[in-house]
């Protein structure tokens, strides 16, 4: 076997293991009827550093499926992100909106 390809392969294996280790957890956002698409997009852009287009696709997914994964990472980062989502506040566009959306940290 070519030593170079063997080395590369080993590096890839290590990287894959590291990636898997830091993506062991995920943040799941749950749908409700008290928030708008605008709210979800602004939230995900600010909290999860998503592009607006990506955030909008997540908004459509949570609307249609009831939940969407908005972040992958280690447990600590996921807890931080989920905490921000859960305390982001009401949707100012809707009078009836009185609180944040709900999210949870789950093992990936």
């Amino acid at each position: 076997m070519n030593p170079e390809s063997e080395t590369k392969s080993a590096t890839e294996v290590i990287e894959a293991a590291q990636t898997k280790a830091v993506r062991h957890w995920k943040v799941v956002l749950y749908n409700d009827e008290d928030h708008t698409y605008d709210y979800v997009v602004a939230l995900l852009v600010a909290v999860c550093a998503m592009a607006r287009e990506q955030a909008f696709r997540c908004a459509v997914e949570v609307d249609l499926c009831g939940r969407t994964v908005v972040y992958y990472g280690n447990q600590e980062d996921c807890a931080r992100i989920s905490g921000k989502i859960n305390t982001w506040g009401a949707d100012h566009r809707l009078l009836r909106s009185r609180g944040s959306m709900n999210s949870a940290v789950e093992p990936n």
Partner: protein
Amino acid sequence: MLVNPGRNQKYRTQTRVQFAKFGGVCLRGGKVGVLQIVYFRAMEQLVLDLLNTLHGGNPPIREPRDLALLSSKQILTLIDLTPPELLPLVVRFLKESRGGERLFEKLMGEHEEENRELVDKFFGRYFAMVMEPTSPEENPLLCYIDPEMFHDLAFIQTRESFFKRQSIADINEFLGIHFNLDQQFVAGEQDKAWNFFFNELLKV
């Protein structure tokens, strides 16, 4: 989740919603709550007829659930033919079909390269229909915190995070218009400005 009904303070007095003319019927695309559900039910047959016409009626779409049974390509093509004003209704149909994750995969074109153009087009058109146009010149606090609600402290408290996320210039403008603001808050003083705002409301 809901489509933005419009600026709240205008919404309550003018019922500002998105309108679309279709078949001589005036559609209210963005209204929320009970009215939206009644409206959706009333429009269901009309939209089903339209979808069947666009789709060619084979297989027939008799109810929202039938939409989810179509292939990814069929759904995306049907959506592509749908007038933009009706996109929120069609998405509502898709939601009612309870197709869940499988349906979303179809909307994502099953991640096939050949569907990418239709997928991008759908999300682009839907984005344009349901998202509020961004206008940086508007002060969000003046748009969304209605002085008529100042007496409802419980409600105002739910807007604390929103208030504190605004720029200090917008906060100063908002406080200056509604209160006798003899000082200008400086950048980073959002908490202080919020306390000033809430204390002023307590005085009333």
